[in-house]
C-alpha cells in the first residue's frame, strides 16, 4: 500500500499549477530592504577627509582624493573618499567607523557598465541617482561603536580639596587609562596641521599604545621641547579639530602628552633623546627672555650645536609659564624638569638681566652671532573706564607675578575680575584660593564682555572656577569703577549684546538699559596684555619694521628687518605657549640657516 502511495503522492505537485506564480513582476525596480548595504553616499559638507574609512578598508577600495570646491583648512583635509567598486565588498565598516557619520550606504544596488574603469567615484561629489535615497545602511545605535566615543575620565582633586592650596588639580593618567585613551585615536592626523608646532600627535599616541614611552618622548621632542608644560597648560587646538570629537569626546591629546613626559624620568632624558654628546659649531646665540619661545629656540639651537645664552629679567626661568600660570595648573617642579633638561644641553642662563639696562641689544649683537628675542606680553591692558587708575584696581599679570615671586598680594574680601580669558580665570582662581586661606570663604565675581558661549577661556577652566565657588557672570561691559576715596565700591556694567561686528572686528554693542552693579573691595583687570618694547633703544626701533598695530614684522624664518635679530613668541604670534614653542623652533632653524649662510 505504501508503494502505491509512493507512486501517487508525487502527483500532488500538480496542485500548484493553478496557483499564481510568486515571481516578482518588475525585478528591475525592486527596492532593497531599509538597511540594505548598497552604494555609498557621503555628506560632503560633513566629511572632514580624515581617512579613517580608508584605513579600515581591508580591500584598499578607498582613496582620498582632492575634490573641487572643498578647501583644505583646519580640521578638514580637503580630501574626500573615492570608492573603487572594483574592490569594495559592501561590508559597511567604513560607515561604522566614519568619525563624522557623513558616510552611509544607500539601498540602491544596480550598477551595470561596459567600461570597468567607470566603477570609481567620489560619493557626494559626483552626482548619482541614489544620492537622495533616505533608506540604506547607517551606523547602528544601541551601544554599537567601533571605537570609544567617550573620553577616559581624568582624576582631579575635588573642589573642596583644591580651593585652599595651589596643589596641582589634575592628577594625570595611569598606564591603563592612558592606553585606553590612546586606543581611541583613529590616527587620521587631522590634528597635526592645527597644532601650531605641528607635533607628531598620532605617532606619540601610537607610542603610548605600544607602551613605548621612550619613542613617544622622542616624537615629542622633535617639535616640542616643553612637553611637561604643554602637557598641562597647552590650549590644545588639536583637540578642537580631533575627528573623534565630531561624535563623541575628542581625544585628550594634551593629557596623553603629559603622560609620556611624566612617565619618563628626567635623568634619563639625555639617554632617551640621544643628546648626551652634541657637535658644537662654535657659534653663539643670545636669547632674550626665557619664556616658551626663548627656551624652544635655545633647545633647538643647542641641538644644532650653538652656544646659547638666555638673558632673563626675572630671577627665575619660564617667563609667563612661571609668572603667569598658577601653580595649581603647572607645578614648578614640572616646569623645572623641562627647563633643566634644556639647560643641561649646555644652554646658559643669566637671571636678573634686563636688556637695555644691564646690557644693550647692540652689545649683544657684538658678543653673539645672532640674537633671538622672545620677550612676550607682560604689560596688562586696561579697560580705561573711569576709575581704573585707582590703586585698588590691579592688573592680573602683575598680581600673578607677585604670587609667584612671593611678594605680598593684596587680597580683599570682595573681588571683581574683568575679563573672560584664561588669565582672568587664573587670577580668579588664584585669588579665590588666597581668599579661602585668608578669610575662609570665597567671594569672587568675574565678568566679561563676551557672553558665556564665546568666552575665550577654556570650558573646563570656567567650570572648575565655578566649582571653586567663584561667580562667573559673563556678557557685561564695564562702564565705571565706583570709588570712594582709597576704597573701591564696585563696578558698574551694562549688558553687552555683541562683541564683534559682521566683519569679525572688535566693535562691542551695548544695551544701555540693562545695568548692573557689582559691589567690590578690589577690582582686577584681565582683558589682555601688551608688549613692552622699552628695552629697544629709540634709534633701534626706527630700524625695525613694525606693522600698524605696533608689532614687529618678521619673515617666515622669524627674522626681523634687522638681519641678526630674530623674534618670536607672544609678541609676534599668540598668546599661548604652543605658538611660542613653534616660533622658537622655526626661529632656531632660521638662525641656523642665517648663520650657515653667513
Amino acid at each position, binding site marked *: 500500500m505504501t508503494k502505491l502511495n509512493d507512486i501517487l503522492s*508525487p*502527483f500532488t*505537485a*500538480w496542485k*500548484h*499549477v*493553478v*496557483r499564481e*506564480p*510568486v*515571481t516578482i513582476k518588475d525585478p528591475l525596480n525592486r527596492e532593497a530592504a531599509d538597511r540594505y548595504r548598497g552604494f555609498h553616499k557621503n555628506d560632503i559638507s560633513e566629511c572632514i577627509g580624515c581617512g579613517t574609512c580608508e584605513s579600515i578598508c581591508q580591500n584598499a577600495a578607498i582613496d582620498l582624493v582632492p575634490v573641487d570646491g572643498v578647501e583644505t583648512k583646519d580640521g578638514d583635509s580637503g580630501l574626500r573618499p573615492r570608492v573603487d567598486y572594483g574592490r569594495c565588498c559592501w561590508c559597511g565598516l567604513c560607515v561604522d567607523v566614519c568619525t563624522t557619520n557623513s558616510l552611509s550606504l544607500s539601498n540602491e544596488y544596480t550598477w551595470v557598465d561596459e567600461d570597468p574603469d567607470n566603477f570609481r567615484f567620489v560619493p557626494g561629489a559626483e552626482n548619482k541617482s541614489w544620492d537622495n535615497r533616505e533608506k540604506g545602511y547607517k551606523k547602528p545605535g544601541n551601544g554599537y561603536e567601533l571605537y570609544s566615543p567617550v573620553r577616559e575620565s581624568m582624576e582631579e582633586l575635588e573642589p573642596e580639596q583644591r580651593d585652599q592650596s595651589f596643589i596641582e588639580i589634575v592628577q594625570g593618567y595611569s598606564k591603563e587609562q592612558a592606553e585606553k585613551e590612546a586606543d581611541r585615536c583613529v590616527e587620521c592626523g587631522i590634528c597635526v596641521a592645527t597644532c601650531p608646532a605641528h607635533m607628531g600627535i598620532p605617532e606619540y599616541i601610537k607610542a603610548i599604545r605600544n607602551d613605548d614611552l621612550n619613542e613617544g618622548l622622542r616624537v615629542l621632542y622633535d617639535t616640542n621641547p616643553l612637553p611637561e608644560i604643554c602637557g598641562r597648560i597647552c590650549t590644545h587646538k588639536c583637540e578642537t579639530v580631533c575627528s573623534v570629537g565630531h561624535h563623541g569626546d575628542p581625544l585628550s591629546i594634551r593629557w596623553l602628552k603629559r603622560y609620556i613626559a611624566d612617565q619618563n624620568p628626567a635623568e634619563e632624558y639625555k639617554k632617551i633623546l640621544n643628546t648626551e654628546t652634541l657637535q658644537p659649531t662654535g657659534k653663539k646665540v643670545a636669547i632674550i627672555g626665557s619664556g616658551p619661545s626663548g627656551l624652544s629656540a635655545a633647545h633647538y639651537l643647542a641641538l644644532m650645536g650653538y652656544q646659547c645664552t638666555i638673558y632673563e629679567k626675572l630671577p627665575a626661568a619660564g617667563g609667563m609659564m612661571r609668572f603667569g600660570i598658577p601653580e595649581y595648573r603647572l607645578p614648578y617642579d614640572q616646569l623645572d624638569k623641562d627647563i633643566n633638561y634644556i639647560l643641561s644641553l649646555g644652554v646658559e642662563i643669566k637671571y636678573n638681566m634686563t636688556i637695555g639696562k644691564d646690557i644693550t641689544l647692540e652689545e649683544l649683537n657684538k658678543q653673539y652671532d645672532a640674537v633671538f628675542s622672545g620677550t612676550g606680553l607682560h604689560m596688562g591692558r586696561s579697560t580705561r573706564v573711569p576709575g581704573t587708575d585707582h590703586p585698588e584696581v590691579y592688573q592680573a599679570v602683575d598680581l600673578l607675578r607677585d604670587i609667584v615671586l612671593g611678594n605680598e598680594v593684596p587680597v580683599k574680601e570682595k573681588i571683581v575680575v574683568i575679563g573672560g580669558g584664561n588669565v582672568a580665570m587664573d587670577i580668579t582662581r588664584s585669588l579665590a584660593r588666597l581668599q579661602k586661606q585668608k578669610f575662609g570663604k570665597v567671594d569672587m565675581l568675574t565678568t566679561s564682555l563676551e557672553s558665556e558661549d564665546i568666552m575665550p577661556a577654556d570650558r573646563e577652566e570656567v567650570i572648575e572656577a565655578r566649582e571653586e565657588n567663584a561667580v562667573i557672570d559673563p556678557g557685561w561691559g564695564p562702564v565705571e569703577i565706583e570709588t570712594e576715596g582709597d576704597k573701591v565700591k564696585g563696578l558698574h556694567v551694562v549688558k553687552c549684546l555683541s562683541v564683534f561686528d559682521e566683519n569679525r572686528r572688535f566693535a562691542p554693542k551695548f544695551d544701555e538699559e540693562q545695568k548692573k552693579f557689582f559691589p567690590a573691595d578690589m577690582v582686577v583687570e584681565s582683558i589682555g596684555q601688551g608688549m613692552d618694547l622699552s628695552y629697544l633703544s629709540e634709534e633701534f626701533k626706527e630700524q625695525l619694521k613694525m606693522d600698524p598695530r605696533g608689532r614687529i614684522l618678521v619673515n617666515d624664518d622669524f627674522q626681523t628687518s634687522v638681519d641678526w635679530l630674530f623674534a618670536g613668541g607672544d609678541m609676534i604670534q599668540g598668546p599661548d605657549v604652543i605658538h611660542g614653542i613653534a616660533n622658537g623652533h622655526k626661529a632656531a632653524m632660521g638662525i641656523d640657516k642665517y648663520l650657515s649662510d653667513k
Partner: protein
Amino acid sequence: MGTIVTKILYALLTLFIVTNYGLILSGVVRKIGARVGRRHGIRFYQPYIDLIKNYTFRTRITHGIMYYIGPVFRLTGGIGLLLFLPVIYGSPVFDNFSFAGDLTFVLYFQFFGVLGMALGAGESGHPYSALGVSRGLAQTTAMELPLTLGVLALAVQYHTLNIHEIVAAQQGSILHWTLFTNPLAAIAMMLSFLAMMGRSPFDVVLAPQEIPIGPPTEYHSALLGVLQLNRAIFPAAKLILFMNLLFGGATNWGELVIKTFFIYMWSVFVGIAYPRFRVDQSVRWYFGIPLLIGVAAILVVKYF
C-alpha cells in the same frame, strides 16, 4: 505525375504546420511545467528565437563527416515518421503518404532518430556523448518492447498494418477508441510513450546533472538548430502516431490539437512528479510491468 507533385506539396504543408505546432507546443508545455514551480517560465514563442539564434551563429567546428550526418539522420527520422502518418483523418490534404503496412515503417523510423544520434555523437568523441548514446540505445530497446507488443496487439485486433485503417476503425464513438477497446495495449504503449518523450523518470539519456547533456553535448550552432527542429517535429509526429493508434485520430486540426496536447501532458504530468531512473533501473522497469501488460494485451486480443 500531377498527383505525386500535389502530394509532395501537401506533405510539405503538413510538415510546416506540424513543425510550428511542435515548436509552440514545446513552448507552452514548458510554461505549464514552470507554473508547477510557481513561475511564469519562458515565453511561448521562445523556441523560435532559440532556433533562429542557433542558425545565426557565425562559427562551427566539425568532428568529421558523421558528425554532420547525425543530426540530419535524426531529422530524417522525425520527418520520415511524420510523412507516413495520416495527420488528419479523412482529409486528402493532410493524409500524407499513408499506405498499407506503414505501421512497421513508423516503428522503424521511431528508432531511426536514436541511431542517428549514435552515429553523430559517437563521432564527436565526447565521453558524455558516448555514455548518453549507450544509455539511449539501451533504454530505447527496452522501451520498444512493450511498444511493439502493443502495436502488434493493435495489428492483431484490427487485422491491419495500415494506420489509416486503424484510425478508421476507431471512428464513430469515443468508445471505439483503442483506449477502450484494448486498454492493455493502450497502457503498455502509453508507458512506452513516457520514455519516448525523454522526460523524467526516463530522461537519463540527456540528464544534465550527470552527463551534460548526453548525446548532443558537442552539438552547437546550426547543427544544434537541426536537432532542435527535430525536437519539435519528432515529438509532434509521435503524438500524432499515438493519437491515431489509441485515441481515434483527428478529423480536424482542432481535435488534433486537443488530443495531442493531452497526450503530451501525460508525459509532462509524470515527468514533473518523478526524478529520473538510472538506465539499468529503467531497462529493468520496462522489462517488468509494461512488458507483462504488452504480453497480456497480445494474449487478450488473440484469445478473447
